[in-house]
């Protein structure tokens, strides 16, 4: 089981190593970590910390994409959840209540998406586009177009605090990832989600409750987005409805794709998507650390991502495989040592 997982995420691990090496090249001090004010301080920690929103979104997005769907609204849901949490805490509620309110907002958004997709049968890209557009407007209404600032140490601690020397967002996304991983792989959810993603009709006819599963994955995506939104708000001690989570849905989808998950649904790996999120964050980090003129930012990012996707393309993989095969390794690994001949006895 563990061996299979490792084999699945090996390409992503290799690319992450390359991306980190790139950081090292542009900034040799990249790997240095020291303690400062009782917390770990260094670029590597930043990658883990700044990758938190994308990582959280990627968890939910992986599940949604596994069902052959997509959720374009996660960025807007981040803005809504951040606004709701900020509003709750500025109107005097405890930060835990504010967090709860933010998560509830995310859950409502997720259920709305799930309803449109699973019950009304609207195509996911269209259904979630509704909330992508309207959601940010809702967030702006909540904050009245301004950045809604707060000073609650509890809520801002979610975004900028530290527990046992590690930034809180790192704990949160790792925790959510483990919980999600256990939830889908220790129960039958993962397999059922994959079944729905591969062939919903067949799965439904086999008695799988595809409707409930679809609603559930959009719900999880909404909750993950809400958590990311609260973290981002906590980080800057304010809910910025105009900018929070802007275009983050695209980073989340990219993380899932870099993670080698098919946009056509089916087999998925949350771990690989998380590595995808870290790869994206490493690329961002390398761009910042390189000190290149800002006009190059997007071009460099695009080139790096194209390179990553090319490395992962089936043709290149096959070429690598053939290259390995031609350099001394057994030319045909697929040939079985003792192939089965089931009907040998039947020959007349």
């Amino acid at each position: 089981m563990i061996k299979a997982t490792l084999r699945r995420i090996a390409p992503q691990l290799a690319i992450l190593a390359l991306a980190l090496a790139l950081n090292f090249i542009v900034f040799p001090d990249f790997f240095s970590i020291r303690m400062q004010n009782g917390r770990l301080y260094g670029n590597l920690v930043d990658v883990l910390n700044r990758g938190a929103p994308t990582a959280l979104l990627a968890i939910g997005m992986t599940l949604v994409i596994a069902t052959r769907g997509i959720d374009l609204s996660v960025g807007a849901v981040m803005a809504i959840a951040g606004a709701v949490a900020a509003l709750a805490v500025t109107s005097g509620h405890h930060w835990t209540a504010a967090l709860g309110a933010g998560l509830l907002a995310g859950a409502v958004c997720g259920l709305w998406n799930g309803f449109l997709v699973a019950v009304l049968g609207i195509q996911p890209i269209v259904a979630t586009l509704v909330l992508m557009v309207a959601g940010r407007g809702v967030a702006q209404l909540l904050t009245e177009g301004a950045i809604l600032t707060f000073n609650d140490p509890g809520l801002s601690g979610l975004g900028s605090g530290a527990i046992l020397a590690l930034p809180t967002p790192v704990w949160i996304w790792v925790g959510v990832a483990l919980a999600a991983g256990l939830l889908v792989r220790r129960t039958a959810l993962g397999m059922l989600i994959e079944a729905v993603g591969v062939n919903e009709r067949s799965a439904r006819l086999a008695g799988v409750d595809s409707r409930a599963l679809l609603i559930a994955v959009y719900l999880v995506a909404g909750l993950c987005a809400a958590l990311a939104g609260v973290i981002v708000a906590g980080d800057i001690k304010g809910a910025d409805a105009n900018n929070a989570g802007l275009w983050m849905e695209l980073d989340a989808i990219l993380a899932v794709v870099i993670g080698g998950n098919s946009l056509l649904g089916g087999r998925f790996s949350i771990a690989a998507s998380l590595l995808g999120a870290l790869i994206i964050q490493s690329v961002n980090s390398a761009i910042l650390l390189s000190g290149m003129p800002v006009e190059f930012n997007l071009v460099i990012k695009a080139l790096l991502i194209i390179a990553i996707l090319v490395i992962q393309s089936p043709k290149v993989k096959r070429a690598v495989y053939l290259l390995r095969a031609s350099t001394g390794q057994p030319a045909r690994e697929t040939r079985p040592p003792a192939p089965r001949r089931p009907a040998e006895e039947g020959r007349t």
Partner: protein
Amino acid sequence: MIHRNTLRGLLLGAAMLTPASARAAGETIGFSQIGSESGWRAAETTVTRQSATERGYDLKFADAQQKQENQIRALRSFIAQGVDAILVAPVVATGWDEVLKEARDAEIPVVLLDRTVDAPDDLYLTAVTSDTVHEGVVAGDWLKEAVGDRACNIVELQGTTGSSPAIARKKGFEQSIASAPNLKITRSQTGDFTRAQGKVVMESFLKSEGGANICALYAHNDDMAVGAIQAIKEAGLKPGSDILVVSIDAVPDIHLAIAQGEANATVELTPDMAGPAFDALEAFWKDGTLPPKWIQTESRLYTSADDNQAVYEEKKGLGY
């Protein structure tokens, strides 16, 4: 002068419960606003409304929601209603000739707020805008004086790449510090005008340059500066003393930061574009005085010498 107007508007704003239309004696003015994409924009709307009420105008407000077609439609409707003047904050620079001609034919003066357009300047009365290059100059001049002769490495948080305020504010600042060889920009990255990105990029600056090697931060807007201040604090340094912070816009939160000693200076982009516009209109109505084609708003510098707590309290209610 302009500033006093703003303050008066603010003070009156609180008591402003009577609707504008109640003072029917005044002129009718149509105002086509871009939308409410930023806090500053919201404040501009608030201040314009307050200022109009105070002067006894009937202000017809139209929110274009970032679409030029909505603005043109609003202008045509203002013209049809026969308003006495039109204020427009144009969402884009081109495509205005026709509707502006219609306004001229109807003899309705048009004042451009905050941005200009690519149209012959006889099609509008005047344009009230801030000089964004000058804002950068003011910020740079302050830093030169604050630093004096010692060497100072500056990190710069740029606005959204390619946007005109980012280009102009960078240009003005560089012009100003060009005369001071001891000031040097060592890192410059975009923070997309947002608080979150300002914080992320500052974190990276602090690590790649080393916090001790950064003498000052210049941010193209206050939001990025506020984010960066948090990053500086989290790195164990004191913003405002270990690292000087100067930025532009003068939104309420930066006044608070200056009051708390965490930021040092900000250059105001006044939300009161309407005040000078109304002044020009009144002179024009009175005896046909033609204002200059460009009325530049004051780029006022706020430092710790001002009562920032008071300014914060005043500005808080403007919708920033």
